[in-house]
């Protein structure tokens, strides 16, 4: 069985603390959620560099832009849905349009937030972040990957949005994980189909590959941790070599990473695609695993869609 690791938000909090020790330019802003976003570790050790901006996301985003132009490297955190939805115009004007060097980390991404329900579950943050010109976007699968993403984000000269999650995340990588923007790690080789996944869908994709293997199909598994820019080379190569792809994300399909992959492949290597994600709906309160079941964010659904692609379109 897969070994459980820390939540990606916990890994974010620890990575931020390490960064803070290394670089006095790092400052952190939070919107009264530091004990949930895990910026509290940084806040405790560096109170002079931590600003709790209260429950006022728009102002927090604008203030981060000002701090960055005065030479700081601000990380701002809230729940993904509050950060992206309530701070969007400010991200557009003061960060994206202004090319400000600000790092935004949204915790509680996806429906794995669970019992708190729809108001706290972010299913559109990646679409919003990806639509901002110049933004880099990442969604790590586990703790080690998160640490690598946060380090890379800090020293990428421009705006970055990172989505992290609430529940403990199964370990996909060993410490220290490697990460670079524009690179999609190949977690498993295969030639019958590709499963490209991100966040908590990565362990589901690996399970799906096991299920497919039992039926004699070899699935390639890609970690789309770098949502923007996508790893065009690895995706096109996978399309060429496997001929079909399932993209799995804990996000609305509209504007999600699947749509980005589809746009890429339809131009350079059109192949049959299938998508696992939220289908034009919000979720509800419930245990994360039950919600994943109910809304189809499971290894079984990924494997089922992959097998359907293989049997319908198999050419060799």
């Amino acid at each position, binding site marked *: 069985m897969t070994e459980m690791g820390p939540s990606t938000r916990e890994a974010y909090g620890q990575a931020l603390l390490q960064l803070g020790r290394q670089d006095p330019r790092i*400052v952190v802003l939070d919107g009264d959620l530091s004990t949930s976003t895990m910026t509290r570790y940084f806040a405790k050790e560096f109170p*002079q*560099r931590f*600003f709790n*901006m*209260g429950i*006022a996301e*728009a*102002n*927090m*985003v*604008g*203030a*981060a*832009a*000002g*701090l*960055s*132009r*005065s*030479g*700081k490297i*601000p990380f701002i955190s809230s729940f993904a849905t509050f950060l992206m939805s309530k701070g969007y*115009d*400010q991200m*557009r*004007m*003061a960060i994206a*349009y*202004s*090319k400000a060097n600000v790092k935004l980390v949204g915790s509680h991404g996806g429906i794995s937030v669970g019992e708190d329900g729809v108001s706290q579950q972010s299913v559109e943050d990646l679409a919003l972040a990806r639509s901002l010109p110049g933004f880099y976007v990442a969604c790590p699968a586990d703790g080690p990957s998160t640490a690598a993403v946060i380090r890379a984000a800090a020293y990428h000269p421009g705006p970055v949005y990172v989505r992290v999650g609430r529940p403990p995340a199964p370990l996909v990588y060993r410490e220290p994980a490697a990460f670079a923007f524009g690179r999609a790690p190949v977690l498993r080789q295969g030639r019958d189909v590709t499963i490209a996944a991100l966040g908590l869908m990565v362990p589901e994709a690996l399970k799906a590959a096991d299920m497919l293997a039992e039926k004699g199909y070899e699935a390639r598994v890609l970690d789309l941790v770098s949502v923007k820019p996508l790893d065009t080379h690895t995706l096109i190569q996978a399309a060429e070599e496997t001929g079909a792809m399932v993209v799995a994300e804990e996000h609305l399909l509209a504007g999600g990473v699947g749509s980005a992959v589809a746009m890429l492949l339809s131009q350079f290597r059109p192949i049959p695609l299938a998508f696992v994600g939220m289908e034009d709906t919000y979720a509800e309160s419930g245990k994360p695993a039950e919600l994943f079941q109910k809304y189809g964010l499971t290894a079984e659904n990924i494997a089922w869609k992959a097998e359907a692609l293989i049997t319908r379109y198999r050419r060799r």
Partner: protein
Amino acid sequence: MTVAGPTLSQRAQKLRRLALESIAAAGSGHPGGSLSAADIVAVLFFQELRWHEKDPLWPLRDRFILSKGHAAPILYAALAETGRIPEESLQTLRRTGSPLQGHPSVKDLPWVEASTGSLGQGLSIGLGHALAGKMDGLDFRVFVLLGDGELNEGQVWEAAMAASHYGLQNLVAIVDQNGFQLDGATDAIMGLGPLPAKWEAFGWQVEEVNGHDVAELQRALAIPRPRWEEKGRPRVIIAHTVKGKGVSFMEGNNAFHGRAPTPEELKKALWELGGEAP
């Protein structure tokens, strides 16, 4: 010995002329709110702001953020008159490829400090600069010019709350209270009163001035540099102004909120503003 240069009032009139000329050349823009802010901008740019002529990012510079971004022409005029940008560039306002975008863009013109035009954002950005100044113990000041209609935006009050919470004595908001917003009088669209009491309730030091009395502005805008060993509060200067100030047919005439003068109107306006006779 000092050589007598133009007075600040004369400077302000020149800024008004340059702003109107650039708006007329562009064929669109916002004369009313540019003219109402001219005296405030003149006092800041010709007297108060500490800056480095070569480096728009000089860490010790006083920051000026035009939160009411539609008054961009008066800011561009001040940048030109202080030698930060060439005066000819004013004629490129709103043209494709020009750094003088319809509303200020810091990516295209680093001297403007912030990209504005979506109202309500400038005070938050100024707050960020002010927090950085306090963190580093620097003595620069941050001036943010807001419109009165802009105060409808909730974000302004989020920033106001945070500025007093963090004791940002280096942050100065200036409200260009010309009494109008796009659709009409501010009192009719969304009542603001009692404005001084609102800022006071948010923990700010409030001063009201005549926004066209240069001497009064000079005194009010001579904000002491922060002394971080002492506690302090942010300050707001509510400047009572006249929309379209200085041009008889634009004063209090909200038709000139967002339309360019015709060539005939421009001639008349320039003459009224101390330019050559038409």
